[in-house]
């Protein structure tokens, strides 16, 4: 079952199309990462999903309800943490939790207590006096203590130093292990998300470039290096970043399927030495982003 589904979802700001006909499905229980460079349309997508913005066209369903009709009942099952969210900074951490609690029938006092201890948040300190990392933790705590079915994190790592970021990710990982929660996290920081997500989608220029599990993604991308490839052998149509320098030929194979793919390489390159290595998510996305840019430039030309 999908906890989020979008159908041809588009959102324009005047003449700028921030999101273009997005079709997305986030399965229940997954940690889904929405990746992409700045301005890719991640935050806009999330704002439409959270009914903070209406879609220009298309539709989105969140928790089985049209995003434009998200009511108190659905929001009681939704957690949202964003770098831009305006928290009531005049409140102390304790006051924030006391204020939020009555809105959620499923608020778990025990979990609240545990998370407070785990995040090491000073209860009596005003939010205005917390560091950015602490503030994000306080927001996360106020969005976790009622065990939401869906937790949405919009660029949660921005501006956090590595130690705090690590703490934060560990916190999310630990709580996501507590139950059947679905997490949607948007970020341009691929390395951090790699540790969290079991499924990723890549947005670029408001369009969806990719949507699959991290496992399958990392399984099908290989960086290949051929030494002494026969002259005259060109790249296959789907290879990316094809490059030849002297005796060395390099490319990225986006459809690696084990023995079958390796046999195809041998048939193409004969006795040449083939070396291949798996790629990190970051490398995969950089490769795809460059490829998209090249395609776009060619199309424009």
């Amino acid at each position: 079952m999908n906890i989020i589904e979008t159908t041809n979802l588009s959102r324009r700001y005047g003449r700028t199309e921030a999101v273009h006909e997005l079709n997305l499905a986030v399965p229940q229980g997954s940690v889904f990462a929405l990746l992409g460079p700045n301005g890719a349309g991640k935050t806009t997508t999330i704002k439409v999903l959270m009914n903070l913005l209406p879609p220009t066209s298309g539709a989105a369903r969140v928790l089985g309800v049209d995003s434009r009709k998200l009511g108190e009942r659905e929001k009681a099952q939704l957690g949202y943490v964003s770098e831009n969210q305006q928290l009531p900074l005049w409140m102390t951490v304790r006051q924030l939790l006391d204020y939020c609690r009555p809105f959620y029938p499923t608020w778990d006092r025990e979990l609240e207590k545990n998370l407070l201890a785990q995040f090491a948040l000073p209860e009596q300190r005003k939010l205005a006096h917390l560091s950015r990392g602490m503030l994000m933790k306080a927001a996360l705590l106020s969005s976790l203590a009622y065990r939401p079915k869906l937790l949405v994190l919009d660029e949660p790592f921005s501006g956090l130093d590595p130690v705090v970021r690590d703490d934060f990710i560990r916190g999310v990982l630990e709580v996501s292990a507590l139950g059947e929660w679905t997490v949607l996290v948007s970020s341009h920081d691929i390395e951090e998300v790699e540790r969290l997500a079991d499924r990723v989608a890549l947005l670029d220029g408001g369009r969806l470039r990719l949507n699959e599990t991290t496992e399958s993604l990392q399984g099908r991308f290989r960086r290949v290096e051929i030494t002494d490839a026969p002259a005259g052998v060109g790249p296959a149509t789907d290879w990316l970043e094809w490059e030849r320098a002297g005796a060395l030929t390099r490319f990225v194979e986006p459809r690696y399927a084990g023995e079958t793919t390796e046999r195809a390489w041998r048939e193409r390159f004969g006795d040449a030495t083939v070396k291949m290595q798996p790629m990190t998510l970051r490398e995969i996305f950089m490769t795809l982003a460059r490829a998209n840019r090249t395609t776009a430039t060619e199309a424009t030309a």
Partner: protein
Amino acid sequence: MKLIWHIAKKDLRRMALPAGLWVAFIVGSAIWFRTASAGTGIQSGEAMVGWLPMMRIWAQLFTIAQFIIGYLLAGALVLEDPVIGTDTFWLTRPIANARLLVAKLLAVALLFVVAPAVGLALVRLACGFSPGEIWQATRALGVNMGLAAAFSVMVASLSRNLVQFLFGFVALAAVGVMTMGRFLVPPTDQFAPMEWAELVASRILVANFVLGCGIVLVLGWQFLTRRRVWGWLILASIFVACVSIRVAWPWNTWAAWNASETASAVPPEAHASIVTKAISLHRYPDRFAERLLQMNATLTVTPGRTSVGVWYAPAAGRVDITWENSTPRYSISLDRFGGSWADACALAYLQGQFEPAIAWHLFGATSSRAQLPSGEARISGRCEIWSARVRIAGELPMTSGGELVEHGNLSRVMAVESSIGWDKVLVIEEHELNFGQAAEVFALLNRRTKQALVVSQNELGRVDMNGETAVLRRLFVPAERPDETWRRDAVLVKVRIEPVHRFFLPFEAHARVIEETR
């Protein structure tokens, strides 16, 4: 309801300190206003006149500060959870828009209407005002504060932050002054036909009603849909509608509204018999040799058994004079003869204690030359009569330092002057609650001989703040005439008059114009 109160409580806690200081400021300024005095024993009234401008400046500053600070704080309370924007905390929490709206209105009402009203009520209770007086003054203050707060909440609902809120306020105030304000004042031509005056009143009434509904509509729209562009468009449409109504509303709604307002009141006929005794038309030459048309009317009122505590006096009148088979038409505004409406009412009350019937005299004239056709003129129109609750507040000793305290209302003789033609001139200072159109009249009264005389007065100035008024006035006690021996035992009484309802007594008469030589 529990969640509404929960949200409101959060806002109350947030605004407790600034709103508390604001209420303290209001209460403090009320105490200052109450205790500030010109001081007794001053020999000349003119010497005290310097006190009034200072009072007026400070009172105006305090009043403006109260409203501006209150307005800003009410807006800030709404902007705690802005309606506009996508990064607002409450939007991603299970808080229904309607619930938030009710919670905000509740918090605003408690902090910016109830709290200052209660604060002032306590001050007034300590001053000795009666619960009835306090309630009326509190109600008036609550309405004013409520209107300012409602406007503030509406502008805040259209704003993303404090800067936009301030800009919105300035822009709306400017547009309001440039458009609505221009049509707020009815034509001052007192000789315009009566229907026109009522039409202007109708336009103001309907436009204000539409504006009030518009504020509610924009507020509801903004909180429920959060679509700001449409919110501004609705507001702009309402402004346009209000201006159009003020310019072109064709129906006399005011009369219908006034009729429904007074329908529940007991008509004067139930309390007293009011008879049109005489109506006459005169044509007088004025000093520029133009001949003006003047109308005199005399009414008599005979108080009935049920008129205890309620008295009547004409406020004004207006008649149209026409001739059959002739085009001239003159409209005349009628005023009371020999004093203000309050004087007439007070005298009616005092004389009504002793005499079975009291006469009212009304008169009025055209402002320009009247070309009169021959024949009998038809006079049609009506006289505006107010019923009022009248009571003698007490006796004021006619000596320097003499005081009259009635509930919290205070009258104090600051100085006794002598002046040619007058027995004495009393300079008095008064502090009183002034809700509605209450008026005070001083009169010499001899209960034994059953005679009364209204003392003419000259108001040196008045300052209002939060429904309380400080007044300096001179009372001119006339020199005793040989036939006024009753005045030797007379006391100076203060008569307090609170208008209750307005009625209209129709005139319908025919009269020939009497040509006067001077």
